Protein backbone atom coordinates (compact mmCIF):
# COMPACT_ATOMS: atom_id res chain seq x y z
CA UNK A 1 0.00 0.00 0.00
CA UNK A 2 1.08 3.52 -0.77
CA UNK A 3 1.38 5.67 2.26
CA UNK A 4 0.27 9.25 2.25
CA UNK A 5 3.29 11.37 2.96
CA UNK A 6 3.92 15.06 2.30
CA UNK A 7 5.53 15.67 -1.07
CA UNK A 8 9.08 16.91 -1.03
CA UNK A 9 9.35 20.70 -1.15
CA UNK A 10 10.94 20.53 -4.58
CA UNK A 11 7.86 18.91 -6.10
CA UNK A 12 5.53 21.34 -4.34
CA UNK A 13 7.42 24.30 -5.77
CA UNK A 14 7.30 22.68 -9.20
CA UNK A 15 3.52 22.84 -9.24
CA UNK A 16 3.73 26.61 -9.30
CA UNK A 17 5.87 26.82 -12.41
CA UNK A 18 2.88 27.03 -14.81
CA UNK A 19 1.25 29.68 -12.62
CA UNK A 20 4.48 31.65 -12.51
CA UNK A 21 4.88 31.36 -16.28
CA UNK A 22 1.31 32.55 -16.73
CA UNK A 23 1.80 35.55 -14.46
CA UNK A 24 5.00 36.58 -16.24
CA UNK A 25 3.39 36.19 -19.67
CA UNK A 26 0.23 38.03 -18.59
CA UNK A 27 2.39 40.84 -17.21
CA UNK A 28 4.32 41.17 -20.46
CA UNK A 29 1.16 41.10 -22.57
CA UNK A 30 -0.54 43.65 -20.33
CA UNK A 31 2.43 45.97 -20.67
CA UNK A 32 2.29 45.43 -24.42
CA UNK A 33 -1.23 46.87 -24.49
CA UNK A 34 0.02 50.31 -23.56
CA UNK A 35 2.99 50.34 -25.96
CA UNK A 36 2.42 51.95 -29.34
CA UNK A 37 4.49 49.93 -31.81
CA UNK A 38 4.19 52.61 -34.47
CA UNK A 39 6.07 55.11 -32.32
CA UNK A 40 9.77 54.77 -33.00
CA UNK A 41 12.48 55.96 -30.65
CA UNK A 42 14.11 59.01 -32.18
CA UNK A 43 17.65 58.26 -33.32
CA UNK A 44 18.64 61.93 -33.27
CA UNK A 45 18.06 62.58 -29.58
CA UNK A 46 21.00 64.32 -27.96
CA UNK A 47 22.36 65.51 -31.30
CA UNK A 48 22.29 69.03 -32.73
CA UNK A 49 19.64 69.81 -35.33
CA UNK A 50 21.07 68.65 -38.70
CA UNK A 51 22.65 71.21 -41.02
CA UNK A 52 20.49 72.42 -43.88
CA UNK A 53 20.23 75.16 -46.45
CA UNK A 54 16.65 75.56 -47.61
CA UNK A 55 14.33 78.39 -48.61
CA UNK A 56 12.03 80.01 -46.09
CA UNK A 57 8.33 79.62 -46.90
CA UNK A 58 7.15 83.23 -46.95
CA UNK A 59 10.33 85.17 -47.79
CA UNK A 60 11.93 82.64 -50.14
CA UNK A 61 15.40 83.48 -48.84
CA UNK A 62 17.80 80.68 -47.96
CA UNK A 63 18.08 79.83 -44.30
CA UNK A 64 20.38 77.51 -42.37
CA UNK A 65 20.33 75.89 -38.96
CA UNK A 66 21.65 79.19 -37.53
CA UNK A 67 18.18 80.68 -38.04
CA UNK A 68 16.86 78.60 -35.16
CA UNK A 69 16.73 80.41 -31.82
CA UNK A 70 19.19 80.14 -28.95
CA UNK A 71 16.45 79.29 -26.48
CA UNK A 72 14.26 76.19 -26.15
CA UNK A 73 12.02 75.93 -29.18
CA UNK A 74 9.77 73.52 -31.06
CA UNK A 75 10.24 72.30 -34.60
CA UNK A 76 6.92 71.18 -35.99
CA UNK A 77 6.84 68.95 -39.08
CA UNK A 78 3.66 69.72 -41.03
CA UNK A 79 2.09 69.66 -44.47
CA UNK A 80 -1.21 70.63 -46.03
CA UNK A 81 -1.84 67.00 -47.03
CA UNK A 82 -1.68 65.95 -43.40
CA UNK A 83 -5.07 65.87 -41.74
CA UNK A 84 -3.73 65.57 -38.19
CA UNK A 85 -1.74 68.76 -38.78
CA UNK A 86 -5.02 70.62 -39.21
CA UNK A 87 -6.20 69.12 -35.93
CA UNK A 88 -3.17 70.32 -33.97
CA UNK A 89 -2.91 73.70 -35.70
CA UNK A 90 -5.11 75.65 -33.23
CA UNK A 91 -3.06 74.33 -30.34
CA UNK A 92 0.17 75.46 -32.01
CA UNK A 93 -1.33 78.93 -32.34
CA UNK A 94 -2.22 78.88 -28.64
CA UNK A 95 1.34 77.84 -27.77
CA UNK A 96 2.81 80.59 -29.95
CA UNK A 97 0.61 83.14 -28.20
CA UNK A 98 2.00 81.93 -24.88
CA UNK A 99 5.50 82.67 -26.14
CA UNK A 100 6.76 79.28 -27.28
CA UNK A 101 9.01 79.74 -30.33
CA UNK A 102 7.82 77.31 -33.01
CA UNK A 103 9.64 76.64 -36.25
CA UNK A 104 7.86 74.86 -39.05
CA UNK A 105 9.30 72.21 -41.32
CA UNK A 106 6.95 72.25 -44.29
CA UNK A 107 7.49 68.64 -45.24
CA UNK A 108 7.04 67.43 -48.84
CA UNK A 109 4.39 70.01 -49.48
CA UNK A 110 3.28 72.45 -52.13
CA UNK A 111 4.53 75.87 -51.02
CA UNK A 112 1.61 77.73 -52.58
CA UNK A 113 -0.91 75.62 -50.69
CA UNK A 114 1.18 75.95 -47.53
CA UNK A 115 1.13 79.76 -47.70
CA UNK A 116 -2.65 79.66 -48.28
CA UNK A 117 -3.04 77.40 -45.24
CA UNK A 118 -1.11 79.85 -43.04
CA UNK A 119 -3.05 82.88 -44.23
CA UNK A 120 -6.38 81.11 -43.69
CA UNK A 121 -5.73 79.25 -40.43
CA UNK A 122 -3.21 81.58 -38.82
CA UNK A 123 0.56 81.37 -38.60
CA UNK A 124 2.08 80.11 -35.34
CA UNK A 125 5.57 79.78 -36.84
CA UNK A 126 8.60 82.03 -36.41
CA UNK A 127 9.68 80.77 -39.82
CA UNK A 128 9.14 77.77 -42.05
CA UNK A 129 11.80 75.58 -43.61
CA UNK A 130 10.62 74.54 -47.07
CA UNK A 131 11.47 70.85 -47.53
CA UNK A 132 9.82 69.81 -50.78
CA UNK A 133 12.13 66.83 -51.31
CA UNK A 134 11.96 65.72 -47.69
CA UNK A 135 15.74 65.85 -47.34
CA UNK A 136 15.77 67.79 -44.06
CA UNK A 137 13.08 65.42 -42.83
CA UNK A 138 15.24 62.46 -43.81
CA UNK A 139 18.25 63.85 -41.95
CA UNK A 140 16.02 64.38 -38.94
CA UNK A 141 14.56 60.87 -39.08
CA UNK A 142 11.02 62.06 -39.87
CA UNK A 143 8.73 59.26 -41.01
CA UNK A 144 5.42 61.07 -41.20
CA UNK A 145 3.59 64.20 -40.20
CA UNK A 146 2.90 65.68 -37.78
CA UNK A 147 6.00 65.31 -35.67
CA UNK A 148 7.22 67.84 -33.15
CA UNK A 149 10.80 68.13 -31.91
CA UNK A 150 12.00 70.01 -28.84
CA UNK A 151 15.32 71.84 -29.22
CA UNK A 152 17.11 73.06 -26.12
CA UNK A 153 18.93 76.41 -25.90
CA UNK A 154 21.99 74.87 -27.61
CA UNK A 155 19.93 73.66 -30.57
CA UNK A 156 20.21 70.04 -29.45
CA UNK A 157 17.23 67.74 -30.10
CA UNK A 158 16.01 66.71 -26.68
CA UNK A 159 12.59 65.24 -27.43
CA UNK A 160 10.41 64.06 -30.26
CA UNK A 161 6.65 63.67 -30.29
CA UNK A 162 5.02 61.69 -33.11
CA UNK A 163 1.40 62.57 -33.81
CA UNK A 164 -0.91 65.37 -32.76
CA UNK A 165 0.47 67.77 -30.16
CA UNK A 166 -2.07 68.85 -27.58
CA UNK A 167 -2.27 70.24 -24.05
CA UNK A 168 -2.01 66.81 -22.45
CA UNK A 169 1.11 65.83 -24.40
CA UNK A 170 2.69 69.22 -23.79
CA UNK A 171 2.13 69.04 -20.03
CA UNK A 172 3.41 65.47 -19.87
CA UNK A 173 6.45 65.57 -22.14
CA UNK A 174 7.32 69.16 -23.07
CA UNK A 175 6.86 71.11 -19.84
CA UNK A 176 10.45 70.64 -18.50
CA UNK A 177 11.74 72.90 -21.28
CA UNK A 178 8.95 75.46 -21.04
CA UNK A 179 8.28 75.80 -17.31
CA UNK A 180 6.58 79.21 -17.56
CA UNK A 181 4.19 78.13 -20.29
CA UNK A 182 3.40 74.90 -18.48
CA UNK A 183 2.64 76.78 -15.23
CA UNK A 184 0.62 79.42 -17.09
CA UNK A 185 -1.62 76.95 -18.90
CA UNK A 186 -2.04 74.92 -15.71
CA UNK A 187 -3.54 77.90 -13.87
CA UNK A 188 -5.68 78.62 -16.89
CA UNK A 189 -6.91 75.04 -16.83
CA UNK A 190 -7.72 75.40 -13.12
CA UNK A 191 -9.75 78.48 -13.84
CA UNK A 192 -11.53 76.58 -16.57
CA UNK A 193 -12.73 73.98 -14.09
CA UNK A 194 -14.21 76.54 -11.71
Amino acid sequence: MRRCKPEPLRLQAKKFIPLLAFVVLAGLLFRGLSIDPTELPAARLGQPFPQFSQPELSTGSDISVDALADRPALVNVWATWCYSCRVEHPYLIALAQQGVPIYGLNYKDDSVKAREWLSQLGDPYQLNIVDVEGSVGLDLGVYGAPETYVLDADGVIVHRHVGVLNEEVFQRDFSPWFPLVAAGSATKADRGIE
Partner: protein
Amino acid sequence: MSVAKRFVIAVSLCIAVWAASNAWAVIETYEFSSPDLERRYHALSQELRCPKCQNQNIADSNAPIARDLRVVLYEQLEAGATDDEILAFMVARYGEFVRYRPGMDRNTVLLWTAPGLLLVLGAFGFLMHFRRRTSESRAGLTDNEKAEIARLLKEPGA
Protein backbone atom coordinates in the same frame (compact mmCIF):
# COMPACT_ATOMS: atom_id res chain seq x y z
CA MET B 1 -24.73 36.27 -74.31
CA SER B 2 -23.25 37.29 -77.60
CA VAL B 3 -19.68 36.49 -78.51
CA ALA B 4 -18.82 40.16 -78.70
CA LYS B 5 -20.18 40.82 -75.22
CA ARG B 6 -18.20 37.89 -73.79
CA PHE B 7 -15.08 39.17 -75.45
CA VAL B 8 -15.54 42.63 -73.95
CA ILE B 9 -16.02 41.15 -70.48
CA ALA B 10 -12.95 38.91 -70.83
CA VAL B 11 -10.78 41.81 -71.95
CA SER B 12 -11.95 44.09 -69.16
CA LEU B 13 -11.31 41.34 -66.59
CA CYS B 14 -7.79 40.94 -67.95
CA ILE B 15 -7.21 44.67 -67.66
CA ALA B 16 -8.55 44.70 -64.11
CA VAL B 17 -6.25 41.87 -63.03
CA TRP B 18 -3.29 43.48 -64.74
CA ALA B 19 -4.01 46.83 -63.07
CA ALA B 20 -4.39 45.17 -59.68
CA SER B 21 -1.12 43.28 -59.95
CA ASN B 22 0.61 46.51 -60.88
CA ALA B 23 -0.73 48.10 -57.75
CA TRP B 24 0.84 45.43 -55.52
CA ALA B 25 4.40 45.67 -56.71
CA VAL B 26 6.60 48.68 -56.35
CA ILE B 27 7.67 49.47 -59.86
CA GLU B 28 10.58 51.79 -60.28
CA THR B 29 13.36 51.80 -62.76
CA TYR B 30 16.88 52.52 -61.73
CA GLU B 31 19.79 52.40 -64.11
CA PHE B 32 22.69 50.77 -62.32
CA SER B 33 26.20 51.29 -63.57
CA SER B 34 27.10 47.69 -62.72
CA PRO B 35 25.25 44.43 -62.03
CA ASP B 36 27.02 44.23 -58.69
CA LEU B 37 25.43 47.52 -57.57
CA GLU B 38 22.05 46.19 -58.64
CA ARG B 39 22.58 43.03 -56.60
CA ARG B 40 23.56 45.09 -53.54
CA TYR B 41 20.58 47.39 -54.08
CA HIS B 42 18.22 44.43 -53.95
CA ALA B 43 19.94 42.91 -50.92
CA LEU B 44 19.90 46.18 -48.95
CA SER B 45 16.37 47.16 -49.91
CA GLN B 46 15.24 43.76 -48.63
CA GLU B 47 17.08 44.24 -45.37
CA LEU B 48 16.05 47.83 -44.64
CA ARG B 49 12.76 48.18 -42.87
CA CYS B 50 10.18 50.81 -43.72
CA PRO B 51 9.81 53.14 -40.69
CA LYS B 52 6.18 53.89 -41.49
CA CYS B 53 4.69 50.54 -42.47
CA GLN B 54 6.41 48.44 -39.95
CA ASN B 55 6.31 44.91 -41.23
CA GLN B 56 7.50 45.65 -44.73
CA ASN B 57 10.96 46.23 -46.04
CA ILE B 58 11.57 49.27 -48.18
CA ALA B 59 11.59 47.12 -51.33
CA ASP B 60 7.96 46.06 -50.80
CA SER B 61 6.50 49.23 -49.35
CA ASN B 62 4.64 51.89 -51.26
CA ALA B 63 4.92 54.42 -48.45
CA PRO B 64 6.49 57.74 -49.48
CA ILE B 65 9.20 57.37 -46.85
CA ALA B 66 10.15 53.95 -48.24
CA ARG B 67 10.43 55.46 -51.71
CA ASP B 68 12.67 58.22 -50.32
CA LEU B 69 14.89 55.64 -48.67
CA ARG B 70 15.14 53.66 -51.91
CA VAL B 71 16.24 56.80 -53.73
CA VAL B 72 18.85 57.50 -51.05
CA LEU B 73 20.00 53.88 -51.23
CA TYR B 74 20.36 54.08 -55.02
CA GLU B 75 22.21 57.40 -54.91
CA GLN B 76 24.59 56.24 -52.21
CA LEU B 77 25.34 52.99 -54.02
CA GLU B 78 26.10 54.87 -57.21
CA ALA B 79 28.25 57.30 -55.22
CA GLY B 80 30.38 54.35 -54.11
CA ALA B 81 29.28 53.97 -50.49
CA THR B 82 29.91 50.62 -48.83
CA ASP B 83 27.07 48.55 -47.36
CA ASP B 84 28.23 49.44 -43.85
CA GLU B 85 28.26 53.16 -44.64
CA ILE B 86 24.73 53.00 -46.03
CA LEU B 87 23.44 51.06 -43.03
CA ALA B 88 25.17 53.53 -40.68
CA PHE B 89 23.52 56.42 -42.54
CA MET B 90 20.08 54.85 -42.14
CA VAL B 91 20.60 53.87 -38.51
CA ALA B 92 21.80 57.40 -37.64
CA ARG B 93 18.43 58.71 -38.82
CA TYR B 94 15.95 55.97 -38.03
CA GLY B 95 17.67 53.94 -35.33
CA GLU B 96 18.41 50.21 -35.25
CA PHE B 97 14.72 49.74 -35.98
CA VAL B 98 15.39 50.35 -39.65
CA ARG B 99 17.44 47.15 -39.97
CA TYR B 100 15.90 43.73 -40.02
CA ARG B 101 19.18 42.49 -38.57
CA PRO B 102 19.87 45.11 -35.90
CA GLY B 103 23.26 45.40 -34.23
CA MET B 104 23.68 44.03 -30.74
CA ASP B 105 22.97 46.64 -28.09
CA ARG B 106 21.11 46.99 -24.83
CA ASN B 107 17.71 46.88 -26.53
CA THR B 108 18.39 44.04 -28.92
CA VAL B 109 20.44 41.70 -26.74
CA LEU B 110 17.35 39.72 -25.78
CA LEU B 111 16.24 39.56 -29.40
CA TRP B 112 19.55 38.02 -30.42
CA THR B 113 20.06 35.69 -27.48
CA ALA B 114 16.49 34.51 -26.81
CA PRO B 115 16.46 31.72 -29.45
CA GLY B 116 19.72 30.27 -28.08
CA LEU B 117 18.58 30.62 -24.48
CA LEU B 118 15.26 28.95 -25.21
CA LEU B 119 17.02 26.13 -27.03
CA VAL B 120 19.35 25.55 -24.07
CA LEU B 121 16.42 25.76 -21.64
CA GLY B 122 14.40 23.30 -23.70
CA ALA B 123 17.33 20.89 -24.01
CA PHE B 124 17.91 21.10 -20.26
CA GLY B 125 14.22 20.45 -19.50
CA PHE B 126 14.15 17.50 -21.89
CA LEU B 127 17.32 16.06 -20.37
CA MET B 128 15.96 16.35 -16.83
CA HIS B 129 12.71 14.73 -17.80
CA PHE B 130 14.46 11.91 -19.63
CA ARG B 131 16.92 11.24 -16.81
CA ARG B 132 14.21 11.11 -14.18
CA ARG B 133 12.23 8.58 -16.18
CA THR B 134 15.19 6.26 -16.65
CA SER B 135 16.27 6.56 -13.02
CA GLU B 136 12.72 5.76 -11.87
CA SER B 137 12.51 2.64 -13.98
CA ARG B 138 15.95 1.49 -12.84
CA ALA B 139 15.21 2.06 -9.19
CA GLY B 140 13.49 -1.34 -9.00
CA LEU B 141 11.20 -2.44 -6.22
CA THR B 142 11.41 -1.94 -2.49
CA ASP B 143 11.53 -4.93 -0.17
CA ASN B 144 7.90 -4.33 0.80
CA GLU B 145 6.81 -4.36 -2.81
CA LYS B 146 8.74 -7.57 -3.51
CA ALA B 147 7.05 -9.23 -0.55
CA GLU B 148 3.68 -8.03 -1.79
CA ILE B 149 4.28 -9.50 -5.22
CA ALA B 150 5.44 -12.80 -3.75
CA ARG B 151 2.29 -12.93 -1.64
CA LEU B 152 -0.01 -12.18 -4.57
CA LEU B 153 1.67 -14.79 -6.75
CA LYS B 154 1.31 -17.40 -4.05
CA GLU B 155 -2.42 -16.77 -3.69
CA PRO B 156 -4.29 -19.71 -5.07
CA GLY B 157 -6.88 -17.60 -6.90
CA ALA B 158 -4.31 -15.57 -8.78
